[in-house]
Structures are given as structure tokens and as C-alpha cells.
């Protein structure tokens, strides 16, 4: 099993590597097209800001490569957002795998932005969520969200119900940090590796 983590200016990649190590999976960190294309599974992490992340992808033409990948791809947090069409974060055109927007949480007097902490995922479907109990807790840190849409495989409530995981063909995205979500996160990573 060859698992490649896409390398670009995406913040805390080490945590993703270690999380996979804990479930017995060695990973390769790479921005090389041939290496990425030869992978069995591809992880597309992301922490930080959408427009600078897109610029970093463009430097290595990764924005052209990623939408054409045929292997299972898992976008995490900003990685999931970049798989969508467009982000309100600095009006950024994203990769367009999912024809969905990424919106900023509306200011709500009672709730803080970013959402930081543990929240539940429900209405679970797809192999990625196999044997994950409804209302499981995952760890989130984000100010932008993907609205509920036809590709949703998990829903979370914050200000409104939104898509906290999405799936289309070989592409998967999770808004929460699976690598920091204790046993549930490990289960979801294992499910991805088993696809």
C-alpha cells in the first residue's frame, strides 16, 4: 500500500503522518506528479488560508493534477474546501471537483467563529463512514463551511446544518481533523485506507 500525502504549504502535515503511523501506515510526503500518480491512496491535508493554499498548489501545477486523480483522495479541512468550486475566503477559485461553494459562517451573537472543538457528525453514509456510529464526536477548527449538498456523507450542526464530509466518485473530504479526532478519527482513516 503506497499512501502519498500531497506536500504544499499546508501547515501541520506532521500530525497527519503520525496519525497514519499509529494505524500502521507509512506515508510518503511529495509534490512530485509521478510519485502522486503512482500512489494507491492520496491524502490532501490543509490548515490555513484558502487563497495562499491555492497559490502554493499552482506553483507545482498540483491544481491541474489533483482533479484528474483516479485513486481515492481524502481532503482534510482546508483540503476538503479546496476540492470545492469556490471559497468566500479571499474569493478564491478552488479545484472544482465538487460543484459546491465554501461559505463563511455568518456572525451569530451566541456562537463564536471559528468553531473550535468537538462536535457531532450524523446522517452518515458511504464506505468512509463504515461502522462509525451516528453522533460520533470529531474535532473541528474552521471559519468557513460547505453547505449541505447532494454529496454530503456527514452533517454537523453549527449555526446551521452543513456538510462535514462529502463524497463524489474517488474523492472524499472531511471538514474535521480526522488525525486529531481520537478513536473515531482513526476509524475513518482506516476506512479510507481500506477503500
Amino acid at each position, binding site marked *: 500500500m503506497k499512501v502519498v500525502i500531497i506536500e504544499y504549504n499546508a*501547515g*501541520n502535515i*506532521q*500530525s497527519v503522518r*503520525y*496519525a497514519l*503511523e*499509529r494505524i500502521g501506515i507509512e506515508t510518503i510526503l511529495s509534490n512530485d506528479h509521478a510519485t502522486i500518480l503512482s500512489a494507491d491512496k492520496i491524502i490532501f491535508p490543509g*490548515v*490555513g*488560508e484558502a487563497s495562499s493554499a491555492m497559490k502554493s498548489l499552482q506553483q507545482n501545477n498540483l491544481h491541474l493534477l489533483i482533479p484528474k486523480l483516479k485513486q481515492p483522495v481524502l481532503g482534510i479541512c482546508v483540503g476538503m474546501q479546496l476540492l470545492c468550486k469556490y471559497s468566500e475566503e479571499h474569493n478564491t477559485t478552488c479545484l472544482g471537483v465538487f460543484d459546491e461553494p465554501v461559505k463563511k459562517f455568518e*456572525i*451569530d451573537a*451566541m*456562537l*463564536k*467563529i*471559528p*468553531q*473550535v*472543538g*468537538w*462536535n*457531532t457528525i450524523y446522517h452518515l453514509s458511504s464506505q468512509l463512514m463504515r461502522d462509525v456510529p451516528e453522533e460520533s*464526536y470529531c*474535532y*473541528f*477548527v474552521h471559519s468557513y463551511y460547505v453547505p449541505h449538498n447532494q454529496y454530503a456523507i456527514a452533517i*454537523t*450542526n*453549527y*449555526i*446551521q*446544518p452543513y456538510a462535514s464530509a462529502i463524497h463524489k466518485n474517488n474523492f472524499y473530504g472531511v471538514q474535521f*481533523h480526522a*488525525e*486529531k*479526532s*481520537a*478513536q473515531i*478519527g*482513526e476509524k475513518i482513516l482506516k476506512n479510507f485506507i481500506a477503500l
Partner: protein
Amino acid sequence: METKNNPPILSGLTKRIIPCLDIKDGRTVKGIHFEQIRDAGDPVELGAFYAQQGADELVFLDITATVEKRKTFKELANRIAQHINIPFTVGGGVSSIDDASILLHNGADKVSVNTAAFKQPDLITQLANEFGSQFVVLAIDTKQEADGQWYVYLNGGRTKTAMLCMEWAQQAYNAGAGEILLTSMNNDGTKKGFALDITKQLSTALPIPVIASGGGGTMQHFEAVFNHAHADAALAASIFHFKEMGIPDLKKYLKSCNIPIRL
């Protein structure tokens, strides 16, 4: 305040329980023997134990004062990231982009800054721009003086400033801090409860999460800091380290008080 006309708050976000571990020369400073773990002096082993007990996050505060500090910091962050599957913050003497960058690249989810940020407020902005606000926790040590006002203290509580806690918290938010870790020096170590008034002031005035610290001694104290002071998270050290309170019991109690808690 909620009125009849407001829709209910739609959120499943839970309140967080955060054990804090003080580290010196790579070892935990406080802490006694737990049957379940071999070496409570090893921050990684103790942290993993708390994670398994249901802690929502961990804070590691390095109080090493030697030139070796940066190296021990880095090694510690790396080992924690390797072994622990929940988020963690590292703090204690973080004073530059370089310090923070080393911690980030070794797996820390957040850094906490205190004295250095007060002395050069630009540090918060630089950290937020470079790594995102979610990475930057501003720690404030505060003390209520005879005049009734809460003042900011530096250098681990040894140096008084003329700055009011609320004013500094506002400035830090404006500069890009993503969370405030608020420690009341009046309450710290007393086990008589958290400082509800200043916690509530900050928590209701600021649009970012506030972590209350100092004084938690009973489960009712935690209930009060969530229900009455609207803290987003509560941090404690010795009550967990000395087994005076188990995290599973605490979380079950809070859940029974209808506080949103991850079990």
C-alpha cells in the same frame, strides 16, 4: 440574551475539559502515581492517559529556563504528536515566529504566547498571518487588585503591569489571537472555584473562545464556569494530577447538568 423571538441556538459544539501539564527539562513537574501508567513523569505517557480518559485537548507548558529549552521543546512536541490522538497546545516562553514554526512543524496544533506577546504585540499578528489565528492562543495571567480591577501580570505572575485584562484581551483579539487562556491568580491553587466575573466579561465580550483556568476544585465549579461564566473550555492541573477528580466522572456530571460534553 435569548428572548422568545430568537430561534434556538443550533450547535452541537461541546465544552472542553483541558488538563495542563507543566514540563521542566522534559519531565512533568507535578503529578503522582497512576496505576494505569508506568511513568507519570513522562509528559507523553501522562498526556496519552488523559486523552484515553476523555480529555478534549491538552496544554503542555514548558517552564525549563535553560538554553537547551528550544531543543527540548521541539523533541517534546514531536513525541506528543507521534503518540497522542487529540489536539494539543505548547506554551512557555514562545517568543518568535521561529519558535512557533518549530513547534508547528513538529506537530503542535497551537502555541500559547504570554509575556513576549505583551512586550511586542506585533508577534500575535505575525503568528496569525503566518500560521492562522487558530494556531495562536493568548495566555493572560490576571489578578484582581484592591481597586476591584483585573490587571495583567507577566513573567509567570511575577511582574505587574498597568494594563487591564479586558483591554489587553480586546487588543490581542484585534491583533489576531484565536483563543484566550485566562488564568486568575486570585483563584489559582485555591480550589475555591474559577473567577466567574472576569471569565464572563471576556467570554461575552469577545467573539473568540475563552479557556478558564485557576481555582477549579469541585465538579460544581466546572458547572458554574460553563453555565454562569459562559467559558468555552476549562483548564486544570493538580486536581487531575493528584487524582482528586477523574475526567470521566467530571464529564458525566457536566453532561447530567445539560452542558454539552463529549462522552
